[in-house]
């Protein structure tokens, strides 16, 4: 292949990427910036919170507990060498609040709920349910995309908070109950070092941002699916890969802004 051809194909894929971003933006715009219909919209939203939120709860809680426990165990073996095992509390709490809570929840969410959203919408598209809605004079963006988007944006920060709370409890289990750090000093040092604005608000901001990105990618991949089984399976994989990468990159960016 000649150099010119390569440059041309590079340019073409760049243009395709920009166009894809534009389509994704238009989809989000069409779904989100509409006057909400309270009476008809609420049941749809509740159902989607059930699907993306409630059904992701078990995996998030179990992962949170184990990650908190592992974190405490690893932290303890390091800190005890310096005689500062009392600092285990802040170490566990701050790692969870600032990083692991939002990030790991987002990754779990992408794998559990994001891929399911892509597959569901992809299936609705390939079985012509979306076209069918359009022909019934009902906007699929409003009927199908919008409730799922809002459900994701509402559920994920809550899941991240649950993950963090359970993780800190896991750290407490290992640090205090097992390794015998004093209960009082564990909590008082933890409380002295965690700050409401710096840590909890930032945790919420991060997980909301991740929620937007993951849900958006999942919905877009489903909406743009090539309507056949191979297309759906590829779109599902793409959702998990792309949203995980996007979460990690965005995490770096947000961390740099918040703590850098």
């Amino acid at each position, binding site marked *: 292949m000649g150099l010119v051809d390569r440059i041309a194909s590079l340019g073409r894929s760049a243009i395709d990427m920009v166009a894809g971003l534009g389509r994704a933006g238009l989809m989000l715009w069409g779904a989100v910036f509409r006057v909400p219909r309270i009476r008809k919209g609420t049941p749809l939203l509740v159902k989607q919170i059930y699907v993306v939120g409630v059904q992701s709860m078990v995996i998030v809680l179990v992962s949170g507990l184990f990650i908190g426990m592992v974190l405490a165990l690893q932290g303890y073996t390091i800190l005890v060498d310096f005689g500062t095992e009392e600092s285990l509390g802040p170490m566990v709490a701050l790692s969870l609040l600032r990083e692991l809570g939002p990030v790991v929840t987002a990754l779990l969410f992408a794998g559990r709920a994001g891929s399911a959203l892509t597959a569901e919408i992809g299936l609705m598209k390939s079985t*012509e*349910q979306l*076209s*069918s809605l*359009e*022909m*019934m*004079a*009902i906007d699929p963006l409003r009927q199908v995309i919008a409730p799922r988007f809002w459900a994701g944006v509402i559920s994920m920060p809550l899941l991240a908070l649950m993950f963090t709370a359970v993780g800190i409890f896991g750290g407490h289990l290992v640090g205090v109950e097992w390794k015998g750090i004093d209960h009082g000093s564990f909590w008082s040092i933890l409380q002295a070092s965690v700050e409401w604005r710096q840590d909890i608000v930032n945790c919420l901001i991060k997980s909301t941002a991740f929620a937007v990105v993951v849900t958006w990618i999942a919905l877009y991949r489903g909406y743009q699916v090539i309507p056949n089984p191979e297309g759906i399976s590829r779109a599902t994989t793409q959702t998990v890969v792309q949203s995980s990468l996007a979460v990690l990159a965005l995490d770096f960016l947000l961390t740099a802004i918040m703590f850098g």
Partner: protein
Amino acid sequence: MTQHSTPLVEVRNLGFRRGSRVIYDDISLTIPRGKVTAIMGPSGIGKTTLLKLIGGQLVPDSGEVLFDGQNVHSASRSQLFEMRKRMSMLFQSGALFTDMNVFDNVAFALREHTQLSEEIIRTLVLMKLEAVGLRGAADLVPNELSGGMQRRAALARAIALEPEMVMYDEPFAGQDPISMGVLVKLIRELSHALNLTSVVVSHDVAEVMSIADYVYVIAEKQVIARGTPDELRGATDNAQLMQFLQGEPDGPVPFHFPAKDFSEELANGAG
């Protein structure tokens, strides 16, 4: 009635291409009110595309589609939605919403577009289901139905809002002879009973010829023949049409995909 003199749908000089592939090149057709109009043609020529163009889901590259005198593609979004409430489409797969049961599927459009009480909706839905013979299946979810029953349920949903026009996309494809017979009967009876304008897109020659009032045959991006079923059967001078109607393997539409000369390719492969 005087309004019957103008056709409900008019397709004028329509051109459409997907990527670099031309699907339609300047075709025109009219769909009269209260009649069954069939559009036939071999697979893969984009008959479904034509329905989507009429429904305003796809935008043509040239030409226009008029629904009751109104241009479908230059209409605003809300005008288009108003037009779509007057038409409905039966998709090849049925396209029932998989997360609700048959009753809710049929009730869906009524609940969305009307302010009727739940009681009246119940009555209307049961009437439609009775018409397609599925009143007993109201509580089943689509996955529990056979393909033919899914299509009938979808038909009940398509007529729920009492549209003026129903577009059938390949209603007979992949059906066993009994379901096919049921569908033929339903389409014919519903069209007459509700005074529906029906557009049937299909390649099942025998079934279409038995219900259509007027037939368009499309091939090679063009309308190659038009007329009542009897006229078409009589048009023996149109070789392409005859090949399609009688299902001959070779003719104007070649059996072989375009390729190099066979003996030449064999010789090259050996050498």
